[in-house]
């Protein structure tokens, strides 16, 4: 066995030797998870530095725990630490200080103990947070009218807050997503703020968050008076309803919430309210719509009948009016035509009379013409005979005076070369040609001598 064991290949574990610093680091690593909540009284002296503070936490039996706290932890408390017996609870872990070789309690959170001091702290914080606007009405988000999806933040081990909420919630098909938290004690603040953040990150479409817990003494409600929780409520994108404690407990969380009710039961009731109203109203709306549409049809039917009657009346009236006008027109027309007919008859009569006159005139003229024609014929024959006789006489006269007859009797006619009858020979010239006409023929001769 021994041989076998010696044959095993095992790493050689060397004895570890720490330096002091390394050992303190090692210890501090081990001590860090030793979270604790310790209650005690603040000692006679507080060492304040700009960024941190030291104080001793004492027990009545004289036990002392040296505490280190960063300035911001005290600021979150809202009120300064007082030396000489102030009761507090500190939450944190122990740590060795390497420069002094002593254990300090690293305080992560401080809570006040005792109703009097808590009220004082409450008032101071309330004033501070109000001044920062955390409770302002304009920051409040509206609660949806019909919340269907609810994030519920409370404890399943509490004094019936969960049961009260669930049993009072009406059966309206709510979907409740329950996040269990501690609602009392030093861990409560972190758990509640985590729950609010979780819903905002993972279920941002929820209609509302309900943060609730049952009644308790003022000290037990302290998580709801913390600055951290007020800030978490204020930062939530999902609206938050709080129902914390009793009627007269108004925590800072209540003031920061978008809607505050007194108790878990009230929180359930307020979520029921609009659903209850809607389930009644929805029937009422149905009835109203039916009545309204019927009313409208009736209204329109009446209007149609009314307009129909009115239309008949109006058309009738119009027709009568037109008929009257037409009658007038006819009357005027017939009167006008009557005048025309009368005039025409007179004209016709006149025309007939004139026609007869013209006819007799024409007849007379015809007779006259006939007479004239007859007379003319008679005259013509008479005048014709006389004219013929006269003409014979004239002809004879003419024949007697004709130059031809003179020529026949032996006379001649002499003309110059221009055909002009020569009556005075003195105007002639020697050698000028002249023509002499006889009864039968003519001769041309040259002048030899003028006498």
């Amino acid at each position, binding site marked *: 066995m021994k041989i076998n064991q010696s044959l095993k290949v095992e790493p050689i574990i060397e004895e570890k030797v720490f330096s002091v610093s390394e050992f303190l680091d090692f210890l501090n690593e081990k001590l860090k998870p030793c979270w604790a909540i310790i209650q005690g009284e603040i000692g006679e002296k507080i060492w304040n530095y700009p960024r941190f503070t030291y104080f001793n936490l004492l027990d009545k039996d004289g036990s002392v725990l040296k505490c280190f706290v960063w300035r911001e932890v005290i600021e979150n408390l809202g009120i300064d630490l007082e030396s000489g017996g102030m009761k507090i609870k500190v939450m944190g872990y122990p740590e060795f200080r390497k420069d002094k070789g002593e254990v300090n309690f690293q305080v992560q959170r401080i809570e006040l103990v005792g109703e009097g001091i808590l009220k004082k702290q409450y008032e101071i914080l309330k004033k501070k947070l109000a001044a920062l606007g955390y409770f302002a009405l304009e920051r409040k988000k509206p609660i*949806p*009218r*019909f919340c*269907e*999806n609810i994030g519920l933040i409370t404890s*399943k081990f509490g004094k019936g807050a969960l049961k009260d909420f*669930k049993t009072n*919630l009406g*059966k*309206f*098909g*709510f*979907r*409740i*997503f*329950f*996040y*269990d938290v501690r609602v009392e004690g030093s*861990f409560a603040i*972190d*758990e509640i703020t*985590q729950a609010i953040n*979780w819903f905002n990150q993972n*279920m941002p*479409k*929820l*209609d509302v968050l309900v943060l609730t817990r049952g009644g308790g003494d003022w000290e037990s409600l302290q998580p709801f008076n913390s600055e951290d929780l007020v800030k978490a409520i204020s930062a939530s994108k999902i609206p938050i309803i709080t129902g914390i404690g009793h009627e007269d407990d108004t925590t800072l969380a209540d003031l920061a919430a978008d809607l505050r009710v007194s108790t878990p039961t009230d929180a359930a009731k307020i979520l029921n309210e609009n*659903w209850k109203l*809607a*389930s009644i109203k*929805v*029937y009422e*709306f*149905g009835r*109203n*719509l039916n009545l*309204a*549409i019927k009313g*409208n*049809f009736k209204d*329109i039917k009446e209007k149609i009948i009314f307009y129909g009657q009115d239309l008949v009346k109006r058309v009738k009236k119009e027709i009568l009016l037109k008929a009257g006008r037409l009658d007038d027109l006819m009357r005027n027309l017939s009167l006008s035509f009557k005048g025309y007919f009368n005039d025409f008859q007179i004209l016709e009569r006149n025309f007939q009379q004139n026609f007869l006159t013209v006819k007799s005139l024409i007849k007379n003229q015809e007779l006259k013409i006939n007479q004239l024609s007859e007379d003319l014929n008679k005259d013509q024959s008479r005048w014709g005979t006389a004219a013929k006789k006269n003409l014979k006489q004239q002809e004879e006269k003419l024949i007697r005076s004709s130059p031809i007859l003179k020529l026949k009797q032996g006379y001649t006619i002499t003309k110059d070369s221009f055909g002009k009858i020569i009556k005075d020979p003195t105007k002639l010239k020697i050698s000028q040609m002249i023509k002499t006409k006889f009864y039968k023929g003519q001769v041309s001769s040259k002048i030899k001598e003028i006498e």
Partner: protein
Amino acid sequence: MPDEKFNFTKAYQEIEEINEWFQGENIDLDEALEKYERGMELIEKCRERLKEAENKFEEIKKKYTAEE
């Protein structure tokens, strides 16, 4: 997660608006019929939704929370 197929709030609000519209004057018949039908359809849906009454309860599992 919440389903969004039927939005009760929107439907209910529309019913209220239709109801109010019918209280008004000078109602056009065609529009009235259209609104009436829409209103009745929404009312029916809302009634159905109100019938689905049982609440659902679900606890969030906090595997990742530090102190548990």
